[in-house]
């Protein structure tokens, strides 16, 4: 069954793109304190919690976490984030965007010059009683999302974002970001034609059961999520696709090197191998 494309790759592809190193992430008490200070916390009495995968800093009602593998940052107000606010949320999107930009500018958590406003999310709350099932729904916060760019190419992947969350008063009550610092140039690659990447995608999905539809298709750099170490950042063709078969639909992604040479794998081994278990049938 041929693949259906609801989204297409751009027609104009640059001839080449740089590949960059990503320096190893080293997190210590000093980095943690500096990050907390940049987020507006006083360099004061605080609890530092350390584990194999992250370090955390609790001061007053605020918490800051940094993942050891990626340097991903999470910051939130423990009382206000994810709770019903005292007043209705009516902060206009433009105001939320301006406040979030000012926060990022001041905190320098991500370099604003490489950040593009990517959209607005909202946290929705709903309740209903079981008799009438009348749903009452409202918004409680705005999450302003910034997307990373490198050399004017958007970055794809589970990383590459910073989201600033604001409450109805316009106070920043949370920040999440996965944005590894960019290192030196590691090299340069010639970019393959989109048709070549489409061919790789079609080969990847050839044996899937069901109808395959591509819903997103992009050329960009690729950044991994918070759990994973990453040594280089390189250009890719990234596809998101959906497979429909009878009563089920599934969604997945395929990512291929866009360059004529690879500077490292784009996918790792399974992080949590499942033990082989035997179970007796009743």
């Amino acid at each position, binding site marked *: 069954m041929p693949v259906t494309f609801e989204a297409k790759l751009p027609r104009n592809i640059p001839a080449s793109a740089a590949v960059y190193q990503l320096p190893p992430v080293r997190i210590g008490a000093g980095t943690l304190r500096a990050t907390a200070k940049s987020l507006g916390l006083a360099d004061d009495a605080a609890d530092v919690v350390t584990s194999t995968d992250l370090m955390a800093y609790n001061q007053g009602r605020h918490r800051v976490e940094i993942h050891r593998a990626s340097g991903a940052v999470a910051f939130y107000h423990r009382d206000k984030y*994810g709770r019903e606010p005292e007043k209705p949320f009516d902060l206009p999107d433009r105001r939320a965007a301006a406040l979030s930009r000012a926060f990022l500018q001041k905190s320098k958590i991500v370099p604003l010059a490489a950040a593009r406003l*990517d959209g607005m999310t909202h946290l929705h*709350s709903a*309740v209903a009683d079981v008799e009438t*099932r009348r749903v009452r729904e409202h918004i409680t916060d705005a999450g302003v999302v910034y997307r990373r760019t490198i050399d004017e190419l958007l970055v794809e992947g589970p990383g590459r974002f910073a989201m600033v969350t604001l409450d109805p008063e316009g106070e920043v009550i949370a920040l999440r970001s996965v944005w590894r610092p960019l290192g030196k140039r590691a090299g340069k690659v010639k970019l393959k034609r989109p048709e070549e990447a489409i061919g790789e995608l079609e080969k990847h999905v050839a044996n899937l059961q069901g109808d395959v539809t591509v819903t997103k298709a992009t050329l960009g750099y690729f950044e991994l999520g918070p759990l994973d170490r990453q040594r280089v950042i390189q250009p890719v063709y990234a596809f*998101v696709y*959906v497979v429909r078969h009878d*009563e089920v639909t599934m969604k997945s992604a395929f990512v291929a090197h866009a360059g004529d040479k690879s500077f490292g794998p784009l996918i790792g081994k399974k*992080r949590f191998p499942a033990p082989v278990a035997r179970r007796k049938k009743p």
Partner: protein
Amino acid sequence: MASVGVEWINNFPNPCDQPELSYCDETSVGFLNGMTSRGHTSKFNWGDGNAWEQDFRDPALGGDDSNWIDNVDFAHFSSHGSTSAANVFSGFFGGQQDSCTWRSNQARFGNNQLEYLCIDACNSLELTRDIIATWQSAFHGLRMILAFTDLVSDSWWTGGRGYNFGRRAGNSERLTNAWLDECYSFWLDDNPITMAAGRTQADAINRRDNERLGSGFGDIPNSEVSWFAWRWRS
């Protein structure tokens, strides 16, 4: 400390034939690892042909959940899922013990032990359906369902969400915050959602926003569940 059980299915041979998945083990076993890394107890980890439908069906309906899913505090299921126009959720298995799917209208959770159920499957708390009609009958002491509206990705790049959530849940962080933060994907448009039951509107909201391991909220019998509260980001 909480007891944890997980069931996940990547492979769907006949007679339960469905498209193969690749990373349901990552999300479920990741969740289990996240919880045990914070000191909680693993009770079972059943994958592929070892994951059985009868583990999710109440004994009153001929099932065996009081020895499995309803015999732990926290359970995680990862597989294909869908909610029908008749408001019945189906979770899909790779073998027939006794059926290829478990269904929400045959689930009675919490009348033994289960408090929190994670469903890492498409359309599991599906907002285009009536989620109260789908899940009300399953809450027999169950406090929360943490699931997804619309499709959720099966991919290595988002497969760490189970571990990331398990670590935070195991640390006694607020469950709704942890689930929404760790399972939301900008790139692949994954939309997590949590739902809690309550005796009153305020009770349902309080539980949805503040439930965490050790929070002491207590179980609610099904006959006393009068309200539901849910939350999602989009």
